[in-house]
C-alpha cells in the first residue's frame, strides 16, 4: 500500500512557491539572514530564514476563500495550501482529511485567553475549514519530526480507506520565544548553518510551511492526476537517550529507518538516496553519519539536505523535506547541500557538494530527528517505479 503525492505547496525564506524554493536550492542559495521580526540583542546569533510578511501570505491565500487566520503559522500554512490546491474544485467531503504537524502552532495567542485554547490545533482547523474537509482533522506534534508524523498519519488514513485524499501539512512561525530558547541551549550558529561541514557552528532557525496532497492511487487516476511521487512507508522510534541530544550512535534513527523500510515492503538495497535531517549541529550531524553508515554499509547513496538554505523550520521541517524530495524525484536532480564545502571527517556522508547532481535512484529515504529522542523516516519513490 502507498499514497500518491499529487500536488505540493510551500512557503519558505525563499518566498512563496515550490519553483522559487527549488531554484534557490539548485543554486545553493541560502535564505538565512538578519532577523527583522524581533530583537536579538545579546544572543549568540542574529540570523534566521524569515518567510514573507503576513500581508503577502494573506494575499496568496485569498484564493482559498474567506478563512482569515489570526496567527502566523496558520497564515503560512494557508499560503502553502493555496499553491497545493490551485485548480482543484473543493466540494465539502467527509472523505477529505487534514493532518498538520507543528511544534508551537498559534503560539502568539499563549496567555491571551483562557488555558482552554488549542493552540497546536489551530492551523489544522484553519486548513480544514478552507479546504472544506469533513473527514479526520487534527494536529500532530513530535518536536522536529512533527510533520513527518503528520505524513505517517496521512498515509495511514489513505491506506486504511478512511480518506480518498488527505491534506498533510507542516507549519512553523518564527517566534522570539523559540529563538531565545535555542540561544539558551547554545545551539544557534553565528553564521548561516553549514550541515556536515567541518566548520559548522550550530543551526539556524527558519520558518515556513508545506502542504502535500496525498491521495490513493486509484483516486488520483480517477481524477486524471499523475503523482509527483509516492509515499511508500513510515517508521518512528524513540531512542530514550536525552531530552535534547540524540543518541550518538544513531540507533534511534536506524530503527525508525528500518521500520519505514519494512512498512514500505522494500530493502535498503532498493534505496538510492538519503535526505538528511541535517541541522548543522555537531551532535545531529555525527549521529546521522553513524546511522547512515550502519544502514547503508558503505554504499554510494547520494545525500541531500536543505537546512543550510531554509534554516531549521522545526515542525514544518519534515514536510518541507518531503516536498523537496518529491520535486527531486520528479526532476531527477539532487540540489547541493547549501553551505557545505568541506565534509567533517567525523560525519562522512556522500553529500552533494557545490553543484546539483543527477539522482541515480527512483527511491529515497527521508530522515528526521527531534527533541525527546524521537526519530522518523519516510520512504518515497517515483510513480514510474510503481508499475
Amino acid at each position: 500500500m502507498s499514497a500518491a503525492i499529487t500536488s505540493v505547496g510551500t512557503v519558505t525564506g525563499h518566498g512563496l512557491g515550490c519553483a522559487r524554493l527549488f531554484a534557490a536550492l539548485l543554486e545553493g542559495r541560502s535564505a538565512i539572514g538578519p532577523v527583522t521580526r524581533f530583537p536579538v540583542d545579546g544572543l549568540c546569533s542574529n540570523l534566521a530564514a524569515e518567510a514573507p510578511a503576513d500581508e503577502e501570505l494573506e494575499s496568496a491565500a485569498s484564493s482559498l476563500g474567506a478563512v482569515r487566520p489570526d496567527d502566523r503559522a496558520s497564515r503560512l500554512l494557508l499560503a502553502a495550501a493555496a499553491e497545493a490546491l490551485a485548480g482543484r474544485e473543493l466540494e465539502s467531503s467527509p472523505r477529505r482529511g487534514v493532518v498538520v504537524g507543528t511544534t508551537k502552532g498559534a503560539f502568539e495567542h499563549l496567555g491571551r485567553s483562557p488555558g482552554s485554547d488549542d493552540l497546536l490545533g489551530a492551523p489544522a482547523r484553519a486548513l480544514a475549514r478552507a479546504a472544506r474537509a469533513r473527514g479526520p482533522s487534527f494536529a500532530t506534534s513530535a518536536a522536529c519530526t512533527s510533520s513527518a508524523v503528520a505524513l505517517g498519519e496521512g498515509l495511514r488514513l489513505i491506506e486504511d480507506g478512511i480518506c480518498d485524499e488527505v491534506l498533510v501539512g507542516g507549519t512553523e512561525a518564527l517566534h522570539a520565544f523559540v529563538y531565545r530558547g535555542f540561544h539558551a541551549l547554545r545551539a544557534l550558529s553565528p553564521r548561516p548553518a553549514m550541515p556536515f561541514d567541518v566548520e559548522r557552528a550550530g543551526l539556524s532557525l527558519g520558518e515556513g510551511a508545506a502542504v502535500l496532497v496525498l491521495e490513493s492511487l486509484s483516486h488520483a487516476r480517477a481524477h486524471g492526476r499523475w503523482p509527483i511521487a509516492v509515499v511508500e512507508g513510515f517508521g518512528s522510534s524513540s531512542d530514550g537517550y536525552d531530552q535534547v541530544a540524540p543518541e550518538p550512535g544513531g540507533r534511534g534513527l536506524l530503527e525508525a529507518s528500518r521500520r519505514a523500510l519494512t512498512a514500505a515492503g522494500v530493502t535498503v538495497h532498493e534505496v538510492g538516496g538519503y535526505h538528511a535531517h541535517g541541522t548543522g549541529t555537531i551532535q545531529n550531524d555525527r549521529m546521522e553519519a553513524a546511522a547512515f553508515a550502519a544502514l547503508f554499509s558503505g554504499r554510494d547513496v547520494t545525500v541531500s539536505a536543505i537546512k543550510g538554505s531554509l534554516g531549521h523550520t522545526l515542525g514544518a521541517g519534515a514536510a518541507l523535506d518531503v516536498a523537496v524530495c518529491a520535486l527531486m524525484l520528479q526532476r531527477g536532480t539532487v540540489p547541493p547541500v547549501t553551505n557545505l564545502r568541506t565534509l567533517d571527517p567525523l560525519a562522512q556522508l556522500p553529500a552533494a557538494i557545490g553543484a546539483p547532481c543527477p539522482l541515480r535512484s527512483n527511491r529515497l529515504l527521508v530522515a528526521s530527528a527531534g527533541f525527546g529522542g524521537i526519530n522518523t523516516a519516510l520512504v518515497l519513490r517515483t510513480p514510474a517505479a510503481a508499475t
Partner: protein
Amino acid sequence: MSPEVAVTSWAVWSGAGVSVNEAPVPGSGRGLAPWPDRPAPILPARGRPVPPSASALVQLVQAILSTRRARVVPPPPTTVDLKLGTRTGSREIDLAFLQSLAERGDAFGSPSLFAYTLSTAAGGEVSLALGLRGALSTVSSGEVSGLAALVTGAASVSSGRSEACLCGAMEVSGSDSDVIALFLLEPAQPYLHAPRLVGWKLSFDPETVTDSRDSPRSTMERLAVTLAHGESAEIGASCPGGHAALLTVVPAAGTTVRPGRSARVGRG
C-alpha cells in the same frame, strides 16, 4: 492484524485521585491529586529537574504497564507507542519559560526549562525513564484531543502498524479539569480477557453547533467507567471548533453484556 483492539489496562489521574483498571475516583480538585497511599512507583534518577507533569506521566505509565504484566499472560509487546491527546500542550511550561525570560533577561533563559516546552517532552521522559522505544507524538483536536489519540491509536494497532499503543488524554494546566488518562491498546486475542474497541471515527464540521459542556476529563472518565463496568457503549464527543470523535466499546469476549449507559456527549 486484528480488526478489534483490546484495552488491556488503563488508568485515570485527576484532581480527585488515581484509579487503575477501575472506575475513576469521583470528586474534584485543582491540578492532579497526590499519588494515593500505596507503594509509589520507583522512578529512575536522572540527576536533573523534571517538571511535575512529566514525572506524573512516567508514574502513571509505569503503573499501567506493571498492572498489565501482573494481570495478563503473556507480557505486553516490547514496542509500545505513546500517543497523547492534548489541547493545552506545554502551556504551563511555556508560560514558566516566558516568565524566566522576563525576570532574567532574553539572553538568560533556562535551557533545561526550554527543553520541556514541547508537548512531547513529558512523553520523552517516559522513554528515558522506562525504556519505551516505540513512536511518540501528541494529537490535538480541541476538546476531543484525548479521544482523537485513542481513535488514531486504535487504528494503528488494528492495522498492525503498532504492536501496542498507550494513548489517551494529558491536560495539565493547574485547573480543576486536569487529567492524565491512558489506555493500553493491543491487538485483540483470545487469551486477552479484556474489553475491546470495535469501532472508531474522527470527523470535522465547523458549521455544526455543538454542546461543549463535556471536558476532556469527563470524556476520559466516561470511557474508564464503561470499561470498568463491563458495559457496551459509544463514547463520543464534539467541540465548538468542529472536531468530533467516536469510540465503540464492548466488554471482554464471553462477558454478559450489561445495558449500555448513555456515554455519548455532545453530538458524537
